[in-house]
Structures are given as structure tokens and as C-alpha cells.
């Protein structure tokens, strides 16, 4: 027999099950929490070469999961993608330091300075993965690239042999790329390096049957690479995107709740019947209605947070409210923002509204958005410190704001100088190398800077041309919104 979970029980479960708000990169995938939203299926197709996704949507998550045999098996099972079971996966680039498998940041910088062709460089990485014997004799990537350039015939034969053997063995070699924002601090160089990866990926797609690349990439970086490798547009047609619908976000929440190692989670599962244990006996898979049916999810979430953001429907729906307020300018919600908002909502409810009839109080949820906004700004700041530098001068202002006002503020603050100095700071090298992130593509062209921020979803343009900021950025940056009614303090 199952008794319903009370408000405090749900609070216990939520605060235990929701991940701490740590850096997304350090949040490793784990067999219990691996969640497989339907919308990510296409991204895992072996033939989906380019997988686009903004910061915090799960690029690194899937990158790591593909490298892990057990997790890949789970994905294969859950998505019903048999090809995932017959892969030989190797990293082509990533945030981890793997000097034998791919060059690190300082090596890349050196190679770029020496004028190495990016294609040759990644070709060397691929051949290393395919087991080219000569390459293993060289410790330095510079020497490996030189060999590849000098021995095109041998390189070609290796690819051909590997392809044929893979066919006979019934496997596919998959070389995967992630963390491309670490490639090079100079945006144009990063774009060239990405262009090289895409060129190689396309060559394998067109020239082999069983060697494939998969490139996890931020949309703005993919667009940037198109400038350096026009054929990359051939990859656009089947590029997949990692997006999170409302149903996916709530599916993730319920998955976390049902997979925690506690009696609350167990009671939650029996209350929401239909959970299955996966083929490996290690995970609990939510029933389809809880995974992806908005109506059922809304009903379940109403058990946790009440149906409305206040007294009744006129105050808004709890189910849609959170995603609507966390959406960025390109209408994406990062799952980490979503989970951190809920985490804050639990803490706030416990602290201030402990007697509330539901586990989450709507004021707690409102406060959660504030926290999620800070999380988001921090998240983007890690990848692109320049975004922070560009938005900070707008603090204290109000949106919608004229584009000219923005560029004027930037001019007053000498943003171009600041951005260039920031680049120089990285140029100083040393330990900072591991923190290399992509700067803006056009630091000295304010109008194009704005376009970049729009592409990133940090800004959005109204139809009348003015610039707006979605709440998820606006709040943490302390930027107001224009209205007609003056607020009386107190």
C-alpha cells in the first residue's frame, strides 16, 4: 500500500535528488541519473555529424556518455539505436588532458602559430585513433602532423584499411569532439580549427562507410566555422540539436526524483505507477506519461507545487511559469537553470513558507528564477567572459533599449579596449591556458557584437529594432524593464 507523499516528504526528496549547482563540466553522467529525452535521439544517431547546443544543454554529458561503454549501452537500449552497440569510440578533442589522443591547448596554439593546416592536424588525430603505427613513435603532435603531410598515401591506406576491417567486424569507428570553445582564444583561429574538424568529418562521411565523426558544438561556433569551410553547409542538413522542451525538463525532474536512493524515491515511484527497471537493473525509467506528456506532468507537478502561481489561474500556471521565465533569447532553457531554480525553490519554501500545503511555494519558485538567472550568467561567463564584460555596462538601465544607446554605453566604457585587454590577458599564457574560452568574433565592431549576443540568446531584437534581454539574463545583470507606472518604495 502506498501513502501519498506530504509536502515535507516531497521537499526531502527534491533537495536530496536535485543536483547541487556545480559547474556543468564537472557534473559527470551517471548510470542512475542518465535521462534520455526523446528529442535527443537524433543527436545520438551515428550519422548525425554535427550536434548543436548552447551552454548547459548536455553536449559534454552525451560526449562523456558515448565514451563510456555502460552508458552507451543504456542509450542504445533506451533509444533503440542498435548501431550504438557496435561502435569503437575515441575522443578527437575534449576538455580532458589527453596529450596522446589529441593536442592540448598550448600545443594547439603553437601549431597554429607555425601555420599548420587544421585539416592535417585533425587528420593526424584521426589516424592516431585508427592506430597508424608510425604516429605512435612520435611524442610530439608537430611531428605527427609533419608525417601525415609527408605521407598522404600511407594515411589514405590506413583509413581505407580501417574502414574495410570495421565493415568486416560490423563496427563503426566514431571519433567525437567536444569543448571546442577551448580550442583557441582568438576567435578567428578557433573558427579555422573547427572548420578543419568539420572538413575531416565531411570527408569521412563521403569517403568511408564505417568511420564517422561527431562534433558537439555551440551554434555560434558552427556558424563561425561556415565562414572558413564553406562546404560545412553540407553538414547543416542533418545537423541535430540538443533542445529541451517543457516536457523534457519535467521528464528530467521526475527521472531524478525516481532515481534517488531513498525510500522517498521509492514511494514516489509507487505513487506514480508504471516505472520500469532498465535492462541492467540499475535505473528506474519513468512511465511514458511522466516522461513526456505535458498534461500528466502538469498534474504531477501540481501535487508538488500546487497548480497556480498564487491564488488561482489568473496568477499563472506553475507548470509553464518556470520554463517561460528561464527561456533565453533563442527560446532555450538550460536544464541546469531549471534544476537550480527548483533547488532554490525548495530551500526558500523551507526557510520562509515551511507550513505551506505544497512542497514548493510560488514565491519560492519566483525566487528560484533569481538564482537560476545567476546560475545562467555564471554559466555563460565561464565559456565567454566577454559576454559579462559586454552586458555589465548596461546594469542599472532598462530594456527595451535602443541599439545606439547600447553602443554608446560601450563606447563610454571603452569596451573594445577592455575586450582586447582580456584577450591579451589570456595571451600571457601559463596556467590560464586551461581556461581559454572563445572571445567575441568582432571585438571592435559594436553592431556585430550585438548580433553575436543575439545569436547566443543573451539579447533579442524586438520587431521595432530595439534590444531586449530575456529575464534569465536581465535579472542577474540588474537591468530593469520600462513600464509606465512608477514604483512607490516601501
Amino acid at each position, binding site marked *: 500500500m502506498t501513502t501519498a507523499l506530504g509536502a515535507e516528504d516531497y521537499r526531502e526528496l527534491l533537495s536530496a535528488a536535485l543536483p547541487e549547482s556545480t559547474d556543468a563540466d564537472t557534473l559527470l553522467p551517471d548510470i542512475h541519473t542518465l535521462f534520455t529525452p526523446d528529442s535527443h535521439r537524433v543527436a545520438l544517431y551515428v550519422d548525425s555529424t554535427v550536434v548543436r547546443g548552447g551552454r548547459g544543454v548536455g553536449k559534454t554529458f552525451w560526449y562523456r556518455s558515448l565514451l563510456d561503454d555502460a552508458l552507451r549501452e543504456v542509450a542504445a537500449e533506451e533509444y533503440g539505436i542498435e548501431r550504438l552497440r557496435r561502435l569503437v569510440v575515441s575522443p578527437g578533442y575534449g576538455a580532458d588532458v589527453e596529450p596522446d589522443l589529441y593536442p592540448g591547448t598550448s600545443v594547439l596554439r603553437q601549431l597554429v602559430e607555425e601555420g599548420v593546416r587544421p585539416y592535417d592536424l585533425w587528420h593526424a588525430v584521426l589516424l592516431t585513433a585508427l592506430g597508424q603505427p608510425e604516429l605512435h613513435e612520435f611524442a610530439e603532435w608537430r611531428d605527427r602532423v609533419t608525417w601525415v603531410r609527408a605521407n598522404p598515401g600511407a594515411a589514405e591506406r590506413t583509413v581505407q584499411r580501417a574502414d574495410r576491417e570495421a565493415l568486416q567486424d560490423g563496427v563503426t569507428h566514431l571519433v567525437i569532439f567536444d569543448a571546442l570553445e577551448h580550442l583557441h582564444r582568438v576567435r578567428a583561429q578557433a573558427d579555422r580549427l573547427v572548420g578543419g574538424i568539420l572538413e575531416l568529418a565531411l570527408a569521412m562521411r563521403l569517403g568511408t562507410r564505417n568511420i564517422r565523426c561527431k562534433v558537439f558544438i555551440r551554434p555560434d561556433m558552427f556558424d563561425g566555422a561556415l565562414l572558413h569551410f564553406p562546404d560545412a553547409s553540407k553538414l547543416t542538413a542533418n545537423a541535430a540539436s540538443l533542445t529541451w522542451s517543457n516536457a523534457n525538463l519535467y521528464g528530467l525532474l521526475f527521472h531524478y526524483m525516481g532515481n534517488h536512493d531513498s525510500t522517498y524515491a521509492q514511494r514516489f515511484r509507487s505513487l506514480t505507477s508504471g516505472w520500469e527497471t532498465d535492462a541492467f537493473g540499475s535505473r528506474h525509467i519513468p512511465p511514458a506519461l511522466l516522461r513526456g506528456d505535458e498534461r500528466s506532468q502538469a498534474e504531477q507537478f501540481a501535487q508538488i507545487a500546487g497548480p497556480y502561481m498564487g491564488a488561482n489561474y489568473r496568477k499563472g500556471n506553475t507548470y509553464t511559469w518556470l520554463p*517561460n*521565465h528561464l527561456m533565453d533569447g533563442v527560446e532555450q532553457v538550460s536544464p541546469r537553470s531549471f534544476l537550480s531554480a527548483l533547488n532554490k525553490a525548495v530551500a526558500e519554501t523551507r526557510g520562509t513558507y515551511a507550513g505551506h500545503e505544497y512542497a514548493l511555494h510560488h514565491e519560492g519558485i519566483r525566487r528560484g528564477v533569481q538564482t537560476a538567472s545567476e546560475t545562467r550568467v555564471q554559466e555563460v561567463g565561464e565559456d565567454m567572459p566577454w559576454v559579462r564584460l559586454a552586458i555589465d555596462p548596461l546594469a542599472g538601465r532598462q530594456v527595451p533599449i535602443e541599439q545606439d544607446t547600447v553602443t554608446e554605453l560601450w563606447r563610454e566604457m571603452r569596451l573594445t579596449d577592455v575586450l582586447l585587454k582580456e584577450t591579451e590577458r589570456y595571451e600571457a599564457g601559463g596556467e590560464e591556458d586551461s581556461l581559454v574560452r572563445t572571445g567575441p568574433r568582432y571585438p571592435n565592431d559594436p553592431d556585430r557584437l550585438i548580433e553575436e549576443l543575439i545569436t547566443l540568446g543573451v539579447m533579442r531584437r524586438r520587431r521595432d529594432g530595439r534590444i531586449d534581454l*530575456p529575464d534569465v539574463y536581465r535579472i542577474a545583470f540588474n537591468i530593469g524593464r520600462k513600464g509606465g*507606472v*512608477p*514604483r512607490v518604495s516601501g
Partner: protein
Amino acid sequence: MNLPSALVRFDDARPRALTIARDVAAEGANVLLVRDVLGRFALIVDDRAQDVPTARAAVWRERLATDLQRYSADRPLLLASELFSADDLLGSERAQPDPLHIPAAGHGSVLILDNTVVGEDWAQVSTPAVETDGSRTHRTALYGFKGGVGRTTAAAVLARHLTDQGHIVLVVDLDLESPGAGPLIAAGSVPPRHGIVDQLVESAVDNANGLELVGPTGYEPRTGRGELWVAPARGRDTKDVPYSYVDKLNRVYADIPGMDFADRLATAVQACEDAVARESESGRRPDVVLLDSRAGIHDIAAVAISRLCDLALLFGADNRQTWGGYGDLFTAWHASGQARAIREKLRMVASMVPDTPHHSMDDYLQSFREHSWECFSVLYDDDVPEAESGRLIPGAFSPSLEDDSAPHYPIPILFEPGLVGLDADRAPGWQDRAFVQAAYRDFLTTATLLITADPQSNEGPR
């Protein structure tokens, strides 16, 4: 050399008068700015608690006359101590605080009293209270700035839907100058003997007892105990005496002793609701009343939206007329200090939304949403970071573009050419057709939830 200054016109006068009023208030006295029916201003200074030196008064008087020119009243400055009925004026419920004035320490307050011939009801927002027995009649006004936006058709579809949900629904046709809801909703049934106009003219001579104001529509809900009633604007013709609609209409807007037009209209709606309780088999008052208001900036609309309803659905298409019209309306509410009270009652409806392969509903609604937000932002809080801390003050009513519970966020109704010029009498069952259901799906779901929710403020009619 003094250049001849430009003439002060109507629009210039108000900001000039307010500036003077605020300056005078800054010297410590409470002031009331009165505008007469021609638009001229007089400033009443409350000198009862503290004396105003004659010299100061003379300076202010001079400034009013100079700055306002033709728009200063014959006696532009009045001292409360010299007035016969200062309390009535200064304590008038019609006087509204200056919405843009935040008095500093030691400053007096600024009130504005606007005397107009018509349309004053826009400036008096209130929400109907619960009934004495604790039940609540949810009153929703359906309004369009421009006619022809499918408002009445939507009212008809919505009324049936609510009836199907088990509610006792009354539709009141307040579009007196061009009645339509009555015939559309009552299709086929015999209209009642009397209409709203009869109630208005008869009650003026204290003769409203025994009027037959509402009629059952004969609509049978699919399930449940719902009933659909209609109170048409116009009553039924009889054989013997001609029904003189125009003669009646010409008399409905008059104020009668003790009752202005708004009171009369409120009483008429109340009478229709009482009639339902009296005449229905269930003996219950309606749960839901839909007020089909007339279009434009008109007194009926003013009363319906500002006072009679707890929810106003504002219909519009995404075009210049819509946003220009609503812009004027919202500006008037803002200027009269009603922004906070009215914004909680409003919700935008995007009617006649196109959805074709080349022009998708999403594109249209995106554009609609931005224009709507722009228009509504006059009524939203100015969310500005605090000067000292540079941080935002939490809790502003300043909804984002995507906030699907905000007043500006449109509820869509798809454009359906099959409904243009519908003759309800000759198209029985039209509301059940699949294309109609598809066009109204989102509207019916959302509007039902909004209508049946309790209003956010609950102050009752003043």
C-alpha cells in the same frame, strides 16, 4: 526681447498644470487640481492646517494664468479656507492621486479631479464584490476597440462552452447601438418581451417591476446542469404597440437624480441576473455573466470594463487601429491613476489569427505579442534598479514578453472565413462544427479558466 510664446493647447495644459501643482506641493501644502468640462484648470491649495502667505498665493495665481493661458480657470487659484465645501472637494472619491508624483519628505500630495461630460467612468475602476450569500457571479466583459473582430461570435461560442461545463450562464447584450449577441445566442428561441433598454427607461420612472428581461435559449448542454440565458438589448415586438427602439435608446444615457449612467447600467445588469434566479427551473443566480460590450471609447464600454466586470477580454487584430485605440485607452487609465487597479482585470484576445502555410500563426502571434506588450507596458510597473544599490527591487508587476499569464499575452482565435457574416438562424449547430471547434480551442480552455477564477482584488463597487 520676449518672443511671443506659442499658444497653449489642450494637450500642453495638463502637464503644465501638473508641474505647477507639484511645485506648490513641494512647498508643503496638499493640493487638488481640478479640470472643468472645457479642460480649464484650477488649483485648490489646502491651507487649513498651515497658512499660505498672500504673497505666495499671488505668485502661484500669476503663474497658473501665465503658463496655462486659455486653459486657466477664471479663478485659477483657490484656498481651501475660503471655500464653502472644501471637504467635499478635497475628500471626493473622484479625486485621484497624481500617478507620476512621488512626494519627497515634507511635500504635500497632489490630487487630480477631472470633470467631464462623458467617459468619466474610465477613471473609476472597481471590481464587483461577492454576493451577500457568499457566492460569486463571475462577470466578464468582451470588448473590442474596433467592431468586426469576432467578439460577439466568440461570446456565443464561449457561452455554450461554459454551459457545457455545468455553469448557469447569462449573456447580456450591451451593444445597444448595434445589438447582436441576443439574436445570435438565442437563435430560434422566442426573445423575452423586454430588453436592457426597457429596463433603463422604465427604471428611470421607477416602473421597472415586472419586466421580462431574460429568456432561456433552449440550448441543451451535452452533460450536466448548465443553463444558457440571454438578456437582449432589444425586446420583442408585439402586434398592438410598435416597439420604438430608437426612442428608448435616446433616453438611456441620461443621469437621473441619485443615479448616474454607470449606476443605472449596473442596476440593469443586476436586474437581469435576478431575473434568471426568478425564472429558471434551478432557481439559481447565474455563475457566469458575459457582457457583450459595444466597441470604441464609449460610456457603456467604460462602465462594463471599469466597473461591472472582474475580467475584461480585449479583442483585437494585429494592426494600427487596434494598438492606437488601446494605446489611447491605456494612457487614459494611466493618467487617471487606475493602472494598478485595471491591469489585473485585463486580458488580450487575438481574434481572427491567420494560420496558413505562408503565414503561420506563430509568426503572427509573435508580432501581436510585441505590439501588445508595447501597449500594455504603460500599465506595467517601471522596473528600475534602485539608485543606491544598483539592484532590482523584487516583486515588480512587469511581466516579460513570454509570460503567458500576463494581460498582454494574447489568447488566440483562428480566423475562420466560414464564420464571416454567419446567419445563426439558418445554420443550426454551427458551433459544433469541427472547424469552429478548432478555431476556438485555445480560447475556450484559457478563457474558461480565467473567467471562473476569482478576481485578484476584491473591493466591490464604489
